[in-house]
């Protein structure tokens, strides 16, 4: 019998988040080798749709457990651009969860969108692209991409469009959505400030007579500030969020990028 180090008989001291798991022993003398195909690389993304624009933002930290892999790994991508830099792209995809799956998903959707253009001689609509992304995700229903995606752009009416997805492709068009590690911190803030939830018109009555404030399309500069506020709050209270904030803004003129540093602690 092979020599077994006493420590291998204890429950594994390896961190549970590791992509490559250590050797686990289930019984003395038997060694079990395991490979986990998934990891969680943290980070958060959010999207807000406006009247004639859509902003999708994400932090640029990529982590494994308590370790930071890199301070600049974009989670927000241009889809269907003419070259590697993404010029000419009109659609934005953001992915959180397992970074490798996120990149694979981005590559796949990007080539699908290009194929569409070559075959039909026109750009794909955001609506069609959203449906295509759902199909891609569902095609891996039993070995899913471990990513939560949001997709944005300008729809056929020229209005800002935003779609959010679960891991297996169930999707919905929304006004705003926060996804990822700090989603639980950011989403209630967005409900309050974008959809004006729990806000009433002052002096409109008492109790049930109170009129809820109707959500109106927000100015682009205002939305940019909301995104910054949402992320500076998340950075403060979530260890997996930080380093940099990448904002991609889709308008009828194309996609503009704003990068601002975030706290690196």
């Amino acid at each position, binding site marked *: 019998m092979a020599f077994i180090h006493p420590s291998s008989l204890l429950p594994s001291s390896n961190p549970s988040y590791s992509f490559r798991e250590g050797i686990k022993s289930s019984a003395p003398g038997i060694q079990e080798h395991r490979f986990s195909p998934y990891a969680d690389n943290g980070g958060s993304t959010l999207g807000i749709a406006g009247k004639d624009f859509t902003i999708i933002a994400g932090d640029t930290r990529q982590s494994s457990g308590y370790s930071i892999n890199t301070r600049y790994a974009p989670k927000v991508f241009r889809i269907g651009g003419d070259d590697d830099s993404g010029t000419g792209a009109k659609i934005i995809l953001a992915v959180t969860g397992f970074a490798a799956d996120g990149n694979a998903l981005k590559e796949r959707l990007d080539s699908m969108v290009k194929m569409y253009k070559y075959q039909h001689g026109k750009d794909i609509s955001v609506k069609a692209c959203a449906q295509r992304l759902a199909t891609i995700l569902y095609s891996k229903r039993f070995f899913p991409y471990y990513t939560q995606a949001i997709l944005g752009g300008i729809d056929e009416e020229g209005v800002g469009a935003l779609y959010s997805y679960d891991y297996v492709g169930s999707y919905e068009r929304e006004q705003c959505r926060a996804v990822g590690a700090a989603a639980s911190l950011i989403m*209630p803030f967005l409900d309050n400030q974008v959809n004006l939830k*729990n806000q009433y018109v002052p002096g409109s009555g008492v109790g049930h007579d109170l009129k809820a404030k109707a959500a109106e399309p927000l100015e682009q500069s205002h939305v940019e500030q909301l995104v910054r506020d949402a992320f500076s709050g998340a950075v403060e209270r979530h260890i997996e969020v930080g380093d940099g904030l990448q904002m991609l803004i889709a308008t009828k003129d194309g996609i503009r990028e704003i990068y601002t540093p975030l706290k690196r602690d």
Partner: protein
Amino acid sequence: MANPMSIIGKNAVAIACDLRLGLQALTVSNDFPKIFQYGPDVFLGLTGLATDVQTVSDLFRYKVNLYRLREERDISPQTMANLVSTSLYEKRFGPFFVNPVVAGINRTTGEPFICGFDSIGCIDFAKDFIVSGTSADQLFGTCEALWQPDLEAEDLFETISQALLSAVDRDALAGWGAHVYIVEKDKVTKRLLKGRQD
């Protein structure tokens, strides 16, 4: 069980809680306040196991009453914080499953004071806000984004109310209305927020 929170302002503090009491997904009561008063301007919020919330709130009523008889004065929020801390640590190896929050104004200095605890009494002194309970994540998000220094009493009320209501609306285990206390020097205002009833 859902959550209380407290935030600090200029010469004022606010403490608020939702009203739901539940066993996991089953709602047992929709009128279960989690904030208790221990003097003219000292408040304690308790989340966690409901039986311990009642036991602990009663225990502190007993302890604070004895303090008042012995010292012939009301307890200050700072003293209350230390009383909570030591009382919880007495049960270090069989703790009460509660996460308390203390809020108040110190009568001598006039300074507002808030702090939070873990279940064995480690104090978290904060200059801005303390949150506790099932919607702690959501509350951290809303407070971090909405809170600013030196809020006056009315703005403090609006801030804590918006922060709490928006947070509990994203938590299935919290909600059903809220109680909000605004504590100023020589004045306490208690308000009932209706909120979503679902």
